C-alpha cells in the first residue's frame, strides 16, 4: 500500500505536481472523506430509503384503486380520526407542560429541582408497554379507582380516554427536554429588561421569552406529534383493539397485517410514512427560516456567555 510521505512540504509539492488544488492543513485526505461518505450512504440506503420504498411498493402492489379503497374503509377512517384526535389533545398539553416545567427549572431554584428533572425523564426510561400496564392496573375495572369510575359509567381503559392518557404519558418529556437547555442558555436578563421597561408578565412571555425559544418549542412539538401518532406499545395495552372504536393507525396496521391483508396494511402504513416525511420537511424549512446566519452567531454568543 502506498503511504503518502510524512513531510507536509513533500506532500504539498506532490499534490501540486498533479495539478490538484492545495488543501488546508486541517482537511482530511480525500480517501478518508470518500470512505466515510460511502459508509454513511450505504447505511442510509439500507435502513432508510429501501424500507420507505418498500412500504409504498407494497401499498400500491394491487393498484391505486385498492390503495384508495383500503384508506377510505370505514375502520381505516376511524383509526385515522382517532389518531388525529389523540395528537390534537396530546401536543397542546405537552407544550403547556413543557413550557411550564422548563420555565420553572431554568428560572428558579427550589428544593427538589433535581428530582423534578429526573421525574420528567421517567417516560423515557420506562418501557411503553409497562406504562400502558400501569394505566390498566390503576384505572382498570378491578382497581379501586377504576371500579369507582366504572360505577359512574366513565370508561377510560379500553376506550378513547385511555389512549389519550397513555399517549400523553409517553410524549410527556419531549417539549420540556428541548426547552430546558435553550431557556438556560438564553438566561433571564432579557426578561428582566422587559419587566423594567414596563412589560407585564404575559407581555414579557409572548414578546421576549417565547420568541427566544420558539424554534426549540416547535421542534419539540414536531417530535411530540410524531411520537403521539406513531406510538404503539402503551396504546396497544390500553386500547382493547375494538375495531372502528379504539384502534389508532399503528394498531390498525397490526390488525390488518395479522389478517394477511398486506396491501391494506401497507397502504395505512404509507400514510404514517408520509406523515413522517412531511414532519421532516416542515422541520427543515422551519429551521432554515429560523436560523439565518445572524441568529446562529447570536446563539453562539449566548452559549459562550453562559
Amino acid at each position, binding site marked *: 500500500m502506498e503511504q503518502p510521505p510524512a513531510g507536509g512540504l513533500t506532500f504539498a509539492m506532490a499534490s501540486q505536481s498533479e495539478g490538484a488544488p492545495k488543501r488546508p492543513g486541517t482537511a482530511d485526505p480525500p480517501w478518508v472523506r470518500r470512505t466515510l461518505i460511502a459508509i454513511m450512504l450505504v447505511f442510509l440506503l439500507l435502513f432508510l430509503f429501501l424500507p420507505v420504498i418498500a412500504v409504498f411498493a407494497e401499498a400500491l402492489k394491487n393498484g391505486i384503486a385498492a390503495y384508495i379503497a383500503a384508506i377510505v374503509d370505514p375502520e381505516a377512517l376511524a383509526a385515522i380520526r382517532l389518531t388525529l384526535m389523540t395528537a390534537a389533545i396530546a401536543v397542546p398539553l405537552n407544550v403547556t407542560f413543557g413550557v411550564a416545567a422548563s420555565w420553572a427549572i431554568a428560572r428558579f431554584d427550589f428544593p427538589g429541582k433535581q428530582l423534578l428533572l429526573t421525574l420528567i425523564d421517567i417516560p423515557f426510561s420506562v418501557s411503553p408497554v409497562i406504562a400502558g400496564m400501569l394505566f390498566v392496573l390503576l384505572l382498570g375495572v378491578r382497581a379501586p379507582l377504576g371500579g369507582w369510575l366504572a360505577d359512574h359509567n366513565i370508561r377510560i381503559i379500553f376506550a378513547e380516554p385511555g389512549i389519550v392518557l397513555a399517549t400523553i404519558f409517553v410524549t410527556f418529556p419531549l417539549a420540556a427536554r428541548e426547552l430546558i437547555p435553550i431557556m438556560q442558555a438564553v438566561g433571564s436578563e*432579557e426578561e*428582566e429588561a422587559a419587566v423594567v421597561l414596563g*412589560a407585564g408578565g404575559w407581555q414579557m412571555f409572548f414578546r421576549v421569552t417565547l420568541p427566544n425559544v420558539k424554534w426549540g418549542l416547535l421542534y419539540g412539538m414536531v417530535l411530540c406529534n410524531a411520537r403521539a401518532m406513531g406510538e404503539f406499545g402503551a396504546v396497544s395495552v390500553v386500547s382493547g383493539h375494538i375495531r372502528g372504536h379504539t384502534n389508532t393507525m399503528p394498531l390498525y396496521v397490526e390488525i390488518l397485517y395479522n389478517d394477511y391483508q398486506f396491501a391494506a396494511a401497507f397502504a395505512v402504513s404509507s400514510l404514517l410514512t408520509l406523515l413522517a416525511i412531511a414532519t421532516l420537511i416542515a422541520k427543515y424549512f422551519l429551521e432554515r427560516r429560523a436560523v439565518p446566519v*445572524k*441568529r446562529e452567531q447570536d446563539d453562539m454568543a449566548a452559549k459562550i456567555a453562559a
Partner: protein
Amino acid sequence: MSIELRNISKKFGDFVAVDNINLHIETGELVALLGLSGSGKTTLLRIIAGLETPDAGEVLFHGEDASAVSVRQRKVGFVFQHYALFRHMTVFENVAFGLRVLPRRARPAEDVIERRVHELLKLVQLDFLADRYPSQLSGGQRQRVALARTLAVEPKVLLLDEPFGALDAKVRQELRRWLRRLHDEIKITSVFVTHDQEEALELANRVVVMNQGRIEQIGTAEEVYHHPANAFVYNFLGNVNLFHGRIENGRVFLGDTAVELDNTHAHAHPETGKAVLYVRPHLLEIVLRPNGKQTFPATVKSINPAGPQVKVELVAEWGDMVQVEISHDRYHTLHLETGAHVFLKPKEQKLFVYQI
C-alpha cells in the same frame, strides 16, 4: 426623583450581600457605587430597581415608600452589563419596546413611536443602524442602544450596572465622556455600579465606596481621594505602598527612619504602638544622599519609563518592595540605573497611617 435607602439588608443563603445600608441620593445627581466584586454594589442597585427584594429596610422614591411598587411601575431605567438587548428584535424594535408594552390608553400612535425612536437613536448617534439586529453591532454600539431603549420610557431614575465593564479601554473612555454629557443634558437621577475607581472618580458627583456589603465612605471624588475615611478607601483608590512601622510620640518609625506626622489618622495600636503606613507611589521622593532621619535607603530593582511618569521599583533596606513614581525630568537629573543605592523621602503631609 430623589432616592432614599433606609437600613437595607440582603442575604443570599449565609452570604451577607448588603449589610444595613443608608444612603440618600438627590434629584439629578450622578452617583457611583464603587467596590470590588462581591461588595454588594450590584445587589444594592438591583434592590433600588426592584429586581431584588431586601430582607430588611425601605427604599423611598421621592420620599414615598416604594417597597410595594412593582418593578414595572417604578419608572426606573436599568442598563445591564451585558446589554440584555432583545436578540430577535431589530435595534428599532428594541428601542420601541417600552412604548409598545404601555397599556392601550397610554400607548402612543405608531407614527409617534417611530418619531420618538428615531429621536433617541439620533441622541445615541446610531440612527443609521435602526434595521440591524443586536448581534450585528459592536459592544459599544449595543450599550448605546440599551441606553436609548431605557430612555424611551422616560424613566425618573437611571440605574447602570457596570455599564462599560464589557468594553475595551478606548470605547470605555469615549462612552464615559458621552454619558457625562448626556447626564448634564437631561439631568436624570443616575446611579451606576463600577469596580473601576478611575471611572467612578471621573464620572460621578458623589462616590459611594463599598466593601463587604457596607459603605466605607460617601463623598465627592475629591473628598474620597484626598480625604479617605479609612485605610480601605485609601488602599482602594489608587496604588499604594504598605509599610509596617510603629508610632512613638507622634512620629512614625520605619526601621530606623522617623517621619514627622501631623496626620489626624495616626492611630497606633495602644499597647504595641504598631502601625501600617500607606504611601502613594507619587508621594515618595528619590534622593541620592541621606537626609538625617527623614530618609531611608533602598535599592533600585527596575525602571519603567513608558508613560507620563517614570515608574521605579525599589527594595527598602528591611526587604519591602516599594513603588515610586517620579517625573521624567527628575529621572534624567538623577541618572537612575538598576542596582543603584538611593534614599527615599516621604512627602510627609500626605501619609496615611493606620493601626493594626
